[in-house]
């Protein structure tokens, strides 16, 4: 771990993972080493949509270019209380609208593990700063794969906890019915450590619920009699699926786990279900960016993907539609959630590739639909509210590939236990 801020700053000029550094970092790091907290000596980068008091939590947008956070998000307060040190504010796709790390108004974030290729997004800077060894752990947010997708492309671990198990108070939201804050780290143990600190009911987030506390010793034990479901979903890049299957085969053989294929009906409609929900909720949530209390009016300065979602959300919330599109998506979301519930009666976890394709080169022209398809396998867990993570399992053409493990709601400890076991192979 590099702890020399000047070295990190120099390296960051090439990667653009951190938008603002903590100028008191070295002093705070020394203090942290004296602390008795669970995060003693742990260096943490924070996605730019999470409020850190005194920092420019700008969502990588010109809208909030000069905004200074007047308070700490609940997760930040917990990190500080446990002796964690904030390295700085991490780059991201503008307002979390994007899955490539290219839409930041302050320049695209580079992938330290695959030069020239996108790092994934929207928590691009969080994943890149972990991959580049700037920090031990990073905080990201995941609405449709925004933690797991960049974790996969950058070769790090990324966890989307169960919906409602981590407070979103202080998160600048993309879609409140789907958003979840979670950790990215070099290994499962560090990710679990941060999750064990931030996962708790918070009265400041009205949907927040209590969950079983993660036992960090227990996640190191190999689960017995495990039934793995391999997601029955055809992806175009067969090499990615082969890499995943090989890893599962090895784990099953070594740990005596049972493996079966599992089908989730209507999972092929996940993208079509997700975007109407996100467009509407994002449009609604962004009405506060009117340039009166802070920042600039969002429609005046935002980039193309942010505007697409605002215009789309504005269109389908018009009276003439009578909420048809949004309601339809909500009903389909429920069906997908029920399908997962049925599946988890048969298996303990479901495994798939995190991303169905390898990343493209930064700046390459692709269609909107093609961009949205990156999240085809991560979106379903957000719709169902499950916990899921991405674990690095190898490389194809020198580009990291992640395996997605999904568990039922509030089975986060089991999820981490399974990931730890596979990580040890």
């Amino acid at each position, binding site marked *: 771990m590099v702890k020399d801020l000047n070295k990190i700053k120099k390296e960051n000029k090439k990667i653009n993972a951190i938008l603002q550094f903590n100028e008191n970092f070295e002093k705070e790091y020394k203090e942290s080493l004296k602390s008795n907290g669970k995060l003693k000596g742990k260096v943490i980068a924070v996605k730019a949509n999470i409020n850190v008091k005194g920092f420019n939590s700008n969502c990588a947008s010109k809208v909030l270019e000069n905004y200074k956070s007047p308070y700490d998000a609940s997760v930040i307060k917990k990190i500080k209380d446990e002796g964690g040190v904030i390295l700085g504010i991490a780059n991201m796709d503008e307002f979390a609208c994007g899955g490539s790390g290219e839409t930041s108004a302050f320049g695209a974030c580079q992938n330290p593990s695959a030069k020239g290729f996108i790092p994934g997004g929207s928590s691009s800077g969080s994943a890149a700063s972990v991959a580049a060894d700037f920090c031990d752990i990073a905080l990201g947010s995941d609405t449709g794969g925004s933690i797991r997708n960049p974790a996969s492309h950058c070769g790090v671990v990324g966890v989307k906890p169960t919906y409602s198990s981590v407070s979103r108070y202080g998160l600048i939201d993309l879609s409140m019915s789907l958003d979840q804050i979670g950790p990215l780290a070099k290994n499962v143990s560090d990710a679990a450590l941060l999750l064990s600190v931030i996962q708790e009911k918070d009265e400041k987030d009205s949907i927040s619920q209590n969950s079983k506390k993660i036992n960090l010793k227990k996640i190191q034990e190999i689960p017995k009699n495990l039934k793995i479901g391999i997601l029955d979903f055809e992806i175009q890049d067969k090499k990615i699926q082969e890499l995943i299957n090989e890893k599962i085969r090895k784990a099953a053989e070594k740990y005596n786990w049972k493996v079966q294929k599992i089908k989730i009906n209507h999972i092929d409609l996940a993208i079509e279900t997700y975007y109407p929900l996100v467009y509407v909720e994002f449009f609604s949530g962004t009405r506060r960016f009117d340039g009166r209390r802070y920042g600039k009016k969002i429609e005046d300065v935002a980039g193309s993907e942010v505007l697409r979602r605002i*215009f789309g959300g504005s*269109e389908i919330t018009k009276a003439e539609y009578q909420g048809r599109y949004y309601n339809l998506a909500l009903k389909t979301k429920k069906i997908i959630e029920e399908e997962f519930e049925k599946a988890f009666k048969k298996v303990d976890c479901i495994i798939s590739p995190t991303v169905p394709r390898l990343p493209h080169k930064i700046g390459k022209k692709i269609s909107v639909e093609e961009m949205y398809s990156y999240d085809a396998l991560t979106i379903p867990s957000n719709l169902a509210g499950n916990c899921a993570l991405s674990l690095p399992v190898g490389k194809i053409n020198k580009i990291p590939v992640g395996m997605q493990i999904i568990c039922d709601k509030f089975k986060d400890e089991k999820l981490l236990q399974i990931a730890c076991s596979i990580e040890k192979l």
Partner: protein
Amino acid sequence: MSDFLWHKISEKEREEIKKQAKKIMDSFSKKLLSLGELKENFIERDKSEREEGENEKVGIDRKIMFENAPHKNKDFIIAEKKKW
């Protein structure tokens, strides 16, 4: 087809994005309609009231809050009239 790198949006591009967003929503919803008649769903919670607990101080720094406002006068934010 376009790249996703951030750039300033022209008026022409803005109109195209509007049309594109509507087209995407129409095509997505058309696919969802293929599922046929769907049942209504409601979430029933056992407990729907917040536990207020002790009055925790909201740690919002008023000085920073006012610094963020483009137009202010001592302890209030000024907004334009008749445009809300």
